[in-house]
């Protein structure tokens, strides 16, 4: 299990390569990569991601441990950035490895649902027209209910 909360960019491809290498007993690797989306009118300059140092690592570790306990997983990776990002930058990534595809898929969805609403990050979209905090959605909160 590896958790990284970092300001610097990461390479999802290189992460997938090292995460999936050398497994003789895990047949399924699932990844999710989150990418900064531009605003509808293409005006975004920067996405600022604020977090709560200390709590962030603890919260993500607890979510990852929960995933390891709920699903039959061989390994978990979570990388999440903070700081100033731009459209098409990679914000975060999760990877799960399991013997069977259902565990790998379910665990990756579970991790994303919990990271979305339970990891202390806040996003602010800055464009030439101003800045606005991204609001949490009822849909994201509701997504937790299926687990």
């Amino acid at each position, binding site marked *: 299990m590896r958790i990284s909360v970092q300001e610097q960019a990461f390479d999802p491809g290189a992460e997938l390569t090292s995460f999936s290498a050398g497994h003789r007993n895990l047949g399924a690797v699932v990844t999710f990569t*989150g990418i900064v989306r531009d605003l509808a009118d293409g005006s975004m300059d920067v996405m600022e991601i604020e977090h*709560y140092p200390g709590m962030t690592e603890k919260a993500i570790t607890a979510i990852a441990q929960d995933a390891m306990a709920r699903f039959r997983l061989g390994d978990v990776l979570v990388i999440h950035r903070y700081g100033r990002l731009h459209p098409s930058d990679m914000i975060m990534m999760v990877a799960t490895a399991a013997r069977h595809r259902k565990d790998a898929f379910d665990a990756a969805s579970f991790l994303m649902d919990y990271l979305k609403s339970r990891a202390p990050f806040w996003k602010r979209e800055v464009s030439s027209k101003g800045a606005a905090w991204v609001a949490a959605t009822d849909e994201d909160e509701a997504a937790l209910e299926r687990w």
Partner: protein
Amino acid sequence: MDVLYFAWVRERIGVPREVVETSAATVMELVEELRAREERYAVAFEDISALRVALDQELSEFDAPLAGVREVAFFPPMTGG
């Protein structure tokens, strides 16, 4: 007690963290004390349903006791991922 603010709560209050002397027994009592202090706190804590609280870096509830707590953080619902 260290009190931390994040995102628009931080913006409204104007500082990311401060030390607060309080004898509040619960989070809600602390919120009432802060609201009574200055307009910027009253504005930040206007709608508690739009806020979340963490005690010593664990998500908690507004009716939770503060006994033994060293760090309280207030912030809007999280938007990770």
